[in-house]
């Protein structure tokens, strides 16, 4: 027998030891009204029947033929080597180990992830990773509060609305006020954060300005001006970035970002409902002691051999629970490894190609729709690989296209009424000219 549960005699001895008559008595404090009295579950099935049932449910998934959906998650080519690396049992079974130095390979992979993130962001130190982009963003804002000893944060409305909701949740516990800095959403407007509005919001003892590059609407933000506005108020700039864009856009370290947060999904992780994804955070070395979560450092052992360790652990919850930099974070070692394998496989030139092809295809999307007289760009200024287009009756047509297997991007109007008649369309290197032609054709049919 490979698994032996407690016997009745075992249970009787344990109950006797703690002076309780029955297991039921242990639950006496829970009111009957909130306890389940009956479980309405179907009868057990054989493995073969379970498989058949799961296949039936999976068959209900509707997989689009063509998709322009982005809005924070992007479909990129994932080289096969990524799956091969993260499928290795040494990695696939290893959560961040609690006797970490035994697992030198795991620590080395995390160290390489941190090193690549520093190179990509132009920052000095990166964490071993976080749950996802939203939680990394919220942790960065909390870190800015600790660094500045202030308890208000300003966030641009150009930051992904889901991230802003997570930020609000993270700030509600410690009583940190979140101020939203508007984006110019006027028809033909910049679609970006106004530095003057940011400066006004920062005037009163605010810890940081959180701004996204590119922003949720795909637009390129004036990050240098936003950084200057933050620094003029002795506040920090938290740059929320899309990692592939860093291959062609200015590195956050170069425009003076104090903290960088990102969703690492575009780096070799498939788009899937609920993840798992991976959060990225990077900072300046001067702030390292306020960083949340794990950090791997490189060192030499007593014999002079290179080795890796978890470092600066006095920030962490298992050393100093009541004063830890964060008690609500962990890393995503396996997904960070996927990102590391991806970035190693494509290399700097490959990543630049991904970013360039994505921006080129996004421009083809915009021009194809404009040429067909179907849509116009909603904003002026430039954009990365996602574009907000003005499309009459966007919601109705979006639904009609979905029925035909074409996901016409994201509907910003769902959360932002001013953008009711717009589509947010994303392109990547996987977006083909045929995909774009199909989008035009289907939109034409719903005119």
């Amino acid at each position, binding site marked *: 027998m490979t698994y032996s549960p407690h016997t009745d005699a075992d249970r009787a001895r344990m109950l006797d030891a703690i002076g309780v008559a029955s297991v039921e008595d242990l639950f006496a404090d829970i009111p009957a009204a909130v306890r389940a009295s009956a479980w309405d579950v179907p009868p057990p099935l054989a493995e073969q029947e379970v498989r058949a049932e799961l296949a039936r449910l999976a068959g209900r998934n509707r997989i689009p033929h063509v998709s322009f959906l982005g809005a924070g998650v992007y479909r990129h080519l994932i080289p096969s080597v990524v799956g091969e690396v993260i499928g290795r049992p040494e990695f696939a079974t290893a959560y961040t180990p609690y006797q970490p130095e035994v697992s030198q390979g795991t620590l080395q992979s995390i160290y390489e992830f941190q090193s690549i993130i520093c190179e990509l962001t132009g920052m000095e130190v990166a964490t071993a990773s976080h749950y996802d982009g939203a939680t990394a963003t919220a942790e960065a804002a909390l870190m800015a509060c600790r660094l500045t000893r202030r308890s208000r944060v300003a966030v641009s409305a150009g930051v992904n609305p889901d991230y802003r909701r997570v930020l609000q949740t993270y700030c509600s516990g410690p009583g940190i006020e979140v101020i939203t800095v508007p984006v110019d959403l006027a028809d033909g407007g910049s679609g970006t954060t106004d530095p003057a509005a940011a400066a006004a919001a920062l005037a009163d003892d605010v810890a940081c300005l959180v701004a996204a590059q590119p922003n949720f609407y795909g637009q390129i933000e004036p990050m240098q001006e936003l950084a200057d506005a933050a620094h003029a108020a002795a506040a920090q700039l938290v740059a929320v970035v899309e990692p592939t864009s860093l291959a062609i856009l200015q590195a956050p370290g170069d425009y003076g970002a104090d903290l960088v947060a990102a969703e690492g999904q575009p780096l070799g992780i498939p788009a899937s409902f609920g993840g798992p994804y991976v959060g990225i955070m990077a900072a300046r070395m001067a702030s390292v*002691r306020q960083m949340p979560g794990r950090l791997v450092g490189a060192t030499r052992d007593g014999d002079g051999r290179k080795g890796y360790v978890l470092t600066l652990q*006095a920030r962490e919850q298992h*050393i*100093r629970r009541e*004063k830890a930099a964060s008690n609500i974070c962990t890393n995503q070692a396996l997904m960070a490894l996927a990102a590391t394998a991806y970035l190693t496989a494509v290399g700097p030139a490959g990543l630049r190609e991904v970013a360039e092809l994505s921006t080129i295809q996004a421009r083809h999307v915009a021009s194809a729709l404009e040429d067909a007289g179907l849509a116009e760009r909603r904003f002026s200024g430039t954009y990365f690989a996602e574009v907000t287009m003005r499309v009459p009756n966007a919601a109705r047509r979006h639904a009609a296209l979905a029925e035909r297997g074409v996901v016409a991007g994201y509907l910003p109007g769902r959360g932002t009424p001013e953008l009711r008649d717009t589509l947010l369309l994303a392109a990547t290197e996987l977006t083909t000219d045929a995909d774009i032609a199909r989008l035009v054709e289907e939109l034409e049919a719903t005119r």
Partner: protein
Amino acid sequence: MSHPDDLAYSREHEWVRMEGSHATIGITSFAADELGDIVFVELPEVGAVLTQFGTFGVVESVKAVSDLFAPVSGEVIEVNEALRDAPELMNSDPFGSGWIAKVEVSDSSELDALMDAAGYADQTA
């Protein structure tokens, strides 16, 4: 272990050297030895107002992390910047170059709540 006679000591192992209304604060050699090699100290900010026996910083050694407790109330007028790069001064010269902060004392009667060298020696004996 010798404790300079001209200092006042707190139960939390901080010392105070008074010069007029200015108090220099550090941790004792006993505390430094107990902590082991000190690798980081989080200093208060100049201008911060300390409350007697309240926390005002953090000291981190290779084996422990401890709060620093202010032996007197007052405003911080200077911090020992040298500790940012050389926290080990708190081990090698705790009563001298390993000082932590200077404070403009707001209520000198608080010194009555502290111990003299002999009293502190008894506590740590």
